[in-house]
């Protein structure tokens, strides 16, 4: 598990958790893990019993890196979008801007959307930030995360996006069998179980 002194290795993943988005979420968690970082997200707050926003603020404060996917910011069932993702992006920008120390102010944020410049229609204030588009493709999402983490952490030995995507597909191929063995449903893993499955799988391969 992540230690409190792991700030420089922790990545906050702010994204939707619905079924439709799940392949992208899983791909992003995999890319963060294979690059040697701790994936963290609001799902950690689900069972903590703590006030949800307080827990999310703690996670944001504990992560040097933040991935914010705005691709599902669109009118929903009640004609309104879910504002959680843009809201948590704002909290992370605030932490970076007003953070208590130099480490917080050196935070690095990646903003993802599904198409180029779409964000300008609903959140034009973020112009000038690091914004990339993944076209709702896990392969492209992995490439975006890998390129950004490699650059921001100055790790130029990190495997390329295509290599990571190939590994991700192998992991996906193995996951149903592995879940069968440990008596879990691969479509319904908790965030902790998914992270542990990815970590153990990566450990056993020479990636």
């Amino acid at each position, binding site marked *: 598990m992540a230690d409190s002194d792991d700030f420089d290795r922790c990545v906050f993943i702010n994204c939707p958790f619905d079924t439709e988005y799940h392949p992208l979420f899983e791909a992003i968690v995999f890319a963060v893990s294979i*690059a*040697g970082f*701790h994936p963290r997200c609001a799902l950690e707050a689900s069972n903590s019993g703590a006030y949800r926003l307080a827990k999310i603020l703690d996670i944001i404060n504990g992560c040097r890196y933040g991935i914010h996917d705005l691709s599902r910011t669109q009118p929903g069932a009640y004609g309104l979008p879910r504002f959680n993702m843009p809201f948590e992006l704002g909290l992370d920008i605030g932490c970076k801007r007003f953070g208590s120390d130099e480490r917080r102010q050196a935070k690095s944020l990646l903003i993802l959307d599904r198409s180029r410049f779409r964000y300008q229609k609903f959140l034009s204030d973020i112009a000038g930030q690091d914004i990339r588009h993944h076209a709702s493709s896990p392969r492209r999402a992995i490439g975006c995360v890998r390129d950004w983490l490699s650059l921001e952490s100055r790790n130029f030995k990190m495997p390329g996006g295509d290599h990571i995507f190939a590994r991700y597909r192998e992991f996906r191929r193995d996951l149903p*069998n592995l879940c069968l063995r440990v008596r879990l449903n691969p479509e319904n893993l*908790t965030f*902790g*179980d998914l992270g542990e499955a990815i970590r153990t799988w*990566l450990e056993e391969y020479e990636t």
Partner: protein
Amino acid sequence: MMPKVLSRQHVVPHGKSWAIRPEGNTRVTAIFRSKREAIDRAREIAGNRDSLVVVHGRNGQAFLGPAVPSTIDRNELRQAIRELQDARGRQAAEKRSK
């Protein structure tokens, strides 16, 4: 008598082999032909406490877990991964021999 404090063991690439390097050391203490052997020995040294074993990839990156507890039995999962790997290895060998 004070209980012995175990240090974290890192499984790291060592040329084409794999090695164990205790945390804080610059030198490796054991070298193995396969990563699997190195992981097993590191776990033994760490008293089978997974939290005390850090496994790295070929590029040196450490594979870190999630920040929340998991319900998965890691021993069972690791065994299942190895059996899948072995089965694929056998299939590939049979294909080559045909």
